């Protein structure tokens, strides 16, 4: 019972901390070509280790991959995020990922919110552009969100914002939070096109 109460508290709390203002104005007269270019930039972001390491699908093991990790491997110390995706069944992510990110190398990053894995259906790690694009525009696998809501959640979900200020010598995701949100809106305005179309 206590586990369920904690998960409920986390779900209620994730959208209220340190919101960042981003422009959610949908651009007009976006061509298909521009939409595909926006998607290509979005794919660079979502497939970057700062994002994909926690988008591990049915696995409950976060990944360690990227330039500062060498060979891709599951998170050390046998970390399991469990069905809760926040590790509450065994070892909470927040045991180590808590508070602000230190700039010291090899220290656990943290945000002013709950460190957690992405939902199971948001499986990105190791997947290609077409597959992730299809997931992101499908309401059944994108959390039932419109493209405006996808852009909006980048503004208020601080664990995502970590990707652009990871600290500790880690490589940040490409572009910026604002540019990524702008690309989501441009891609959406073009009809959420995927590369084969």
């Amino acid at each position, binding site marked *: 019972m206590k586990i369920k109460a904690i998960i409920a508290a986390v779900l209620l709390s994730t959208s209220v901390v340190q919101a960042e203002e981003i422009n959610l104005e949908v651009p007009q007269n976006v061509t298909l070509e521009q939409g595909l270019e926006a998607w290509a930039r979005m794919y660079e972001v979502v497939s970057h280790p700062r994002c994909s390491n926690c988008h591990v699908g049915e696995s409950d093991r976060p990944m360690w991959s990227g330039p500062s990790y060498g060979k891709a491997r599951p998170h050390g110390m*046998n970390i399991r995020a469990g069905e809760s995706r926040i590790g509450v069944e*065994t070892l909470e992510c927040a045991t180590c990922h808590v508070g602000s990110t230190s700039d010291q190398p090899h220290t656990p990053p*943290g945000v002013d919110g709950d460190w957690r894995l992405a939902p199971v259906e948001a499986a990105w790690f190791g997947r290609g552009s077409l597959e992730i694009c299809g997931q992101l525009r499908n309401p059944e696998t994108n959390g039932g969100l419109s493209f405006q809501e996808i852009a909006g959640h980048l503004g208020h979900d601080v664990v995502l914002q970590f990707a652009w200020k990871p600290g500790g010598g880690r490589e940040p995701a490409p572009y910026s939070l604002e540019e990524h949100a702008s690309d989501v809106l441009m891609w959406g305005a073009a009809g959420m096109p995927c590369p084969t179309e």
Partner: protein
Amino acid sequence: MKLTVNGTEHTLDVEPEMPLLWVLRDELKITGPKYGCGIAQCGACTVHVDGSAVRSCSITVGDVDGDVTTIEGLGTPDSLHAVQAAWVAHQVAQCGYCQSGQIMQAASFLDLNSEPTDEDIDNAMSANLCRCGTYPRIREAVKTAAKTLNEA
């Protein structure tokens, strides 16, 4: 800055960026939590913040949002916490350096998961390192503590 540790409120004159472990050991002279790696990879510094296990080397005192409990505040010699009693019963400790972190982690874990499987125990405790290799005794003590807590 105010910080409540083991039920006592302290007034601190420290930078908010100071790690909680430094505050506990150097400022408040509470030395149960141990310095091991300094980067949350060994678990020796584990304390509770509002009952949840936290690596005190990796949270700044300014980021602490709640009451801190260290091994000194978990139980008393006359009234041991169930985990501490199980640790004695199974004679878990060898050199003992990691043990306060192990016990604090186990106590927090059992508070969340009162009927753990062996796999749950291994997953919960695998980020607390013991260079003496007392892991089999740790697992047995956690199982005993779970039983004690469930019978209470």
